[in-house]
């Protein structure tokens, strides 16, 4: 049951600060997360642009940064990865859209813990500021990549950027963990406790299921990363040796002994693999929602979709070793991890087939949200196909730490999740701002981005198989790699185009807020609860009432019904299921 103290919650706040800055309203907080992620994604993209330029023209003089030195390159790489994984892929789909729409879609007036919700946003914000500040301290940004492998990350004198920069990086991650834990706890409690009458578990939209399961993953994974980060800080600042064996740096014997870099890898990947699902599951939820809505058909296999989400979440905790096949693990463990990893392909494939089955024979409306949802499926499949290759130790050993892996995870996690964010943006924009985004610009954005990302990331698979190693700042001097220069150049040009078209998106976003075509309360003729309320939704979401739910989330084209969609709150028809 809900606690009273929530429902009469807070009166609509007055004054700019309580309304827009320290707001307790989940909708404002969702938008805050969204705009934070927007700033982060453009920062991260700019860094990747610098990296691509450096790879092709290693001695170019660039504005702002001058000539990029190898250590600068590694700093860019670390910050790019960290910003993208944590502050974009974890922040926008889950904390951003989840915050805004999870309570509305289950018929709740707000999150279960509004104050905690506000704190979790501001904690995330602090984490972002701390991370960015690593650029501006002596030595610059750390070199250890988003995975922060020890001993490089544990030794302050291992290179420039490993001094204060690395401490800031770890601190930022630790703060982010705390923020994510607060968020996850809130999402789970809200879903368990605040569902409107009739919103049974099996009537929840798949977006809600995805946010819910993502929150469970976050709850279990971030606590481990927090511990791992604390131990890393101890190694760096108190001289302990959790992760550091006896090592020599620049001819100097370090004071550490007895630790194991593998401990970091275990702890990191125990978090890291679930984290990749934290990034993708909300996108899966959005894709399911949109594909059903725009195909005017019930989702194919609703229950199978729910169980597949659960299976992915559950198995996601048992496969972390597939990132460590190179670590000299026992072949028996490698075999177990490999088997388990390939088994995850099964629920993933179930989801894919169900998406296709939903589109099959539907009256498909190819609006921009639907295009991006289809793009999501396309990228998920393309990236997913390389997974079972990497899951086998024999194949992974030559492919590990090459561009093959970079291609794999950019397609499946990076760009697929970003497509999920775009789909959600185009879909929910009319509800959030009362106007539609410009459809022509959206289509230009879609086609260029889809082709552009394939042009950037597909060739990476060939590069990897040709032996191009990952995280190297220069290859133009290496004999066997010079043959690959034309391909690399092509990828850089593709990156220019793809990044440029994101400005079209940015323009469309802000222009449409002011000038877009006015939208009705339910412009897509969709069924879930957010479309039953005013636009934008009032402070308590449903204007003083609590909706009563009579239908499942995807009742499209029901035979005999007056319209081709039945809203979840429509009166129950004779035989109720």
């Amino acid at each position, binding site marked *: 049951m809900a*606690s*009273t103290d929530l429902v009469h919650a807070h009166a609509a706040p007055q004054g700019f600060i309580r309304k827009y800055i320290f707001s307790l309203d989940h909708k404002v907080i969702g938008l805050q997360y969204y705009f934070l992620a927007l700033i982060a994604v453009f920062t991260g993209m700019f860094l990747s642009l610098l990296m691509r330029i450096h790879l092709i023209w290693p001695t170019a003089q660039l504005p702002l940064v001058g000539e990029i030195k190898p250590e600068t390159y590694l700093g860019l790489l670390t910050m790019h990865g960290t910003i993208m994984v944590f502050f974009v892929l974890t922040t926008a789909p889950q904390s951003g859209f989840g915050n805004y729409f999870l309570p509305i879609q289950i018929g709740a007036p707000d999150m279960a813990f509004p*104050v905690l919700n506000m704190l979790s946003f501001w904690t995330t914000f602090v984490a972002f500021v701390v991370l960015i500040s690593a650029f501006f301290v002596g030595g610059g940004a750390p070199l250890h990549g988003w995975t922060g492998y020890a001993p490089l990350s544990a030794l302050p004198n291992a290179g420039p950027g490993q001094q204060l920069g690395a401490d800031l990086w770890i601190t930022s991650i630790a703060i982010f963990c705390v923020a994510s834990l607060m968020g996850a*706890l809130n999402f789970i409690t809200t879903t368990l406790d605040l569902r409107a009458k009739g919103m049974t578990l099996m009537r929840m939209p798949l977006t809600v299921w995805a946010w819910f399961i993502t929150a469970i993953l976050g709850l279990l*994974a971030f606590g481990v990363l927090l511990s791992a980060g604390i131990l890393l800080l101890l190694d760096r600042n108190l*001289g302990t*040796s*959790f992760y550091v064996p006896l090592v020599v740096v620049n001819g100097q014997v370090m004071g550490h002994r007895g630790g194991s870099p593998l401990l970091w890898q275990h702890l990191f990947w125990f978090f890291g693999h679930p984290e990749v699902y934290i990034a993708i599951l909300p996108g899966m939820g959005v894709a399911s929602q949109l594909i059903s809505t725009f195909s005017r058909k019930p989702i194919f296999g609703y229950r199978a979709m729910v169980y597949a989400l659960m299976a992915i979440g559950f198995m996601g905790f048992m496969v972390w070793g597939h990132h460590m096949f190179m670590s000299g693990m026992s072949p028996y463990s490698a075999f177990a991890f490999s088997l388990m990893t390939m088994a995850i392909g099964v629920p993933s494939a179930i989801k894919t087939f169900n998406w296709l089955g939903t589109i099959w024979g539907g009256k498909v409306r190819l609006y921009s949200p639907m295009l991006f949802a289809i793009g999501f499926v396309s990228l998920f499949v393309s990236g997913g196909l390389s997974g079972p290759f990497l899951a086998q130790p024999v194949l992974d050993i030559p492919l590990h730490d090459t561009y093959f892996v970079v291609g794999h995870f950019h397609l499946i996690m990076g760009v697929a999740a970003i497509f999920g964010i775009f789909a959600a943006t185009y879909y929910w924009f009319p509800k959030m701002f009362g106007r539609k985004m410009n459809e022509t610009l959206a289509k230009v954005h879609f086609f260029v981005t889809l082709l552009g990302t394939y042009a950037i990331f597909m060739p990476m698979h060939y590069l990897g198989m040709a032996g191009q190693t990952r995280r190297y700042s220069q290859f133009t001097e290496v004999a066997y790699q010079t043959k690959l220069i034309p391909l690399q150049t092509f990828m850089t040009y593709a990156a220019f185009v793809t990044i440029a078209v994101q400005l079209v998106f940015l323009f469309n976003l802000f222009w449409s807020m002011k000038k877009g075509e006015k939208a009705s309360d339910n412009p897509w003729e969709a069924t879930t609860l957010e479309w039953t309320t005013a636009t934008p939704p009032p402070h308590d979401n449903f204007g003083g009432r609590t909706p009563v739910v009579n239908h499942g989330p995807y009742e499209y084209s029901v035979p005999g019904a007056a319209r081709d969609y039945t809203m979840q709150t429509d009166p129950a028809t004779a035989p109720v299921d």
Partner: protein
Amino acid sequence: MADVAVEQHGVAAAYEPSLFGTYSKKIGMWLFLLSDSLTFGALLYAYSYGRISTPNWPTPFHSESIRNATLMTAFLLTSSLTMVLAVRASVFGKGKAVRGWLLATMACGTAFVILHGHEWSNLIAEGLTLPVFPAVPGHEASKEFANVSRTVPQFPATFFGLTGMHMLHVTLGVIYLGIVALRKKFIPILLGLWLVAWLATPSYSPFHYGAHVLLLAAIAASVIVFLKPKVYDSSDVEVAGLYWHFVDLVWMFIFPLVYLMSTRIL
């Protein structure tokens, strides 16, 4: 039993019954404890990893340490009992008794922390240290502990890491209970405790700087009391109790793993 006391009327009808048949705050706390157990789980994993991969793991603790740790355990177990009594009193709405039992719980928790701090200081003086801890002036380190710190740095690292994290949890628990029991009035007390802990410890002691945790906690507590100025009810006592028992439970892992399995007798 305690659930009945916080049954809230009127609202429930508009919602589906909660999946676990209880109120949000309690579910929230259970979820926090779930994630916190993974946080501790990771530390225990790191400990086991270090211990298994180190040949000849030292077992330097003497009966003196064990006696002290047993006493600490007794305080913690007693505090669980007083916590149960506080929850029980709150169910029957006996405000005074609740406050009394909460204060008793806090007293036991504080005793635990002080004994533990004393134990740390002794061990550090004996030579079981981390590289950054300054030497204790005017004290001869024992050969054995100094040797352990030099040859198996994992030993002091895991010892201080695990017990330190637990000590932090107990400290925060005492502050949590203090806010539930005394609300605003607890903040000046907390500031007093900070000053005492800071000024009464010598500058070479890790607690000299560690004391500032209390200052940070006092600031955070002020923010919380400012944001949530309400009167705390029995559900708050029950939820705080969950946290307290969890911290106890964690000690029941740490005590045998870190202390008992590293004593001379074994």
